[in-house]
């Protein structure tokens, strides 16, 4: 299913913006635009290491380039959520909303993150339930053996 947290960047797009960034890096003259475009692609990668790198680049931009801060915060939230670092993601969302309360795009991102957490929470509970059942079965078998040995 495609949504803002699961769509994947096309490898050729990632490569394209990576190349621009690296060319500028080589000349020691990286523009915020090139860094942001590369980071924006990285946080949409299917590889966690790419997302991590994207987050690093966005954090750096956030500290050094005031003009684009709302963009950086938004994609920091997306990157963190994709790494399943949900509390971090929600913190970014909250700091965004403290500056622009009620921003529909960010409110909707918050809902998407919470829905994803809920979904994964349910999966976690189901697994715990399975383990309880398995442990119960082992204990049961053990008790049966013990009672057999007694008789």
């Amino acid at each position, binding site marked *: 299913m*495609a*949504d*803002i947290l699961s*769509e994947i960047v096309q490898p050729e*797009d990632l490569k394209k913006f990576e190349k621009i960034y690296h060319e500028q890096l080589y000349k020691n003259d990286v523009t915020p*635009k090139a860094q942001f*475009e590369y980071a*924006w692609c990285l946080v949409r990668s299917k590889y966690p290491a790419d997302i991590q790198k994207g987050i690093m680049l966005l954090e750096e931009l956030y500290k050094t380039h005031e003009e684009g801060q709302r963009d950086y915060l938004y994609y920091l939230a997306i990157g963190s959520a994709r790494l399943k670092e949900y509390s971090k993601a929600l913190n970014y969302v909250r700091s965004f909303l403290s500056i622009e309360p009620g921003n529909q*795009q960010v409110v909707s991102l918050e809902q998407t993150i919470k829905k994803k957490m809920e979904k994964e929470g349910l999966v976690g509970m189901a697994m715990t*339930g399975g383990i309880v059942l398995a442990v119960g079965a082992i204990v049961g078998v053990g008790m049966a053996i013990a009672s057999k040995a007694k008789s």
Partner: protein
Amino acid sequence: MSAGPYNYSYIFKYIIIGDMGVGKSCLLHQFTEKKFMADCPHTIGVEFGTRIIEVSGQKIKLQIWDTAGQERFRAVTRSYYRGAAGALMVYDITRRSTYNHLSSWLTDTRNLTNPSTVIFLIGNKCDLEGQRDVTYEEASKFAEENGLMFVEASAKTGDNVEEAFLETAKKIYQSIQDGRLDLNAAESGVQHKPSQPGRNPLSNDQQANKDNCAC
């Protein structure tokens, strides 16, 4: 929202494009939420929305990518054009510059989508008749010359918003029926979800879980 994830037979991918401030996000919001956002900040990057509609008795899920109009996002938002089955190209009838830029938006769309992509031109803010800067006739002629579908709409009043999204879907559906749109092509922007008997994920799974818990 409560409907199961397979409660539709097709997915169509849409993009919404056009200059900043023409009301792209407001059109999307009006279509998905049936509400007008009075104070709409600039979109960051891309926004996403969905709605399930019905065309000729078929349920279709629209996955809509609403792109930011600001120039600084343009390089990356271009990558969202790929594989769009429908493109809604929006201008503001009260600002001629947004109309003048249409040919550049159209060129981008033609270059980055496929020949079967349905392009629908929307002149937004038609509730502001007093401030009109582009006549209906002029835009209509432009649409005709370029083979685009066209309406004037208002995200504020909701006029023609539904129509624009639905007419686009009808045209895409028609292309599938006529065989002009190849569903197997990677970038057709359409996914077919054949109905899966016995798989109604939500209700069945919940039922199964309950059964398991009974012990």
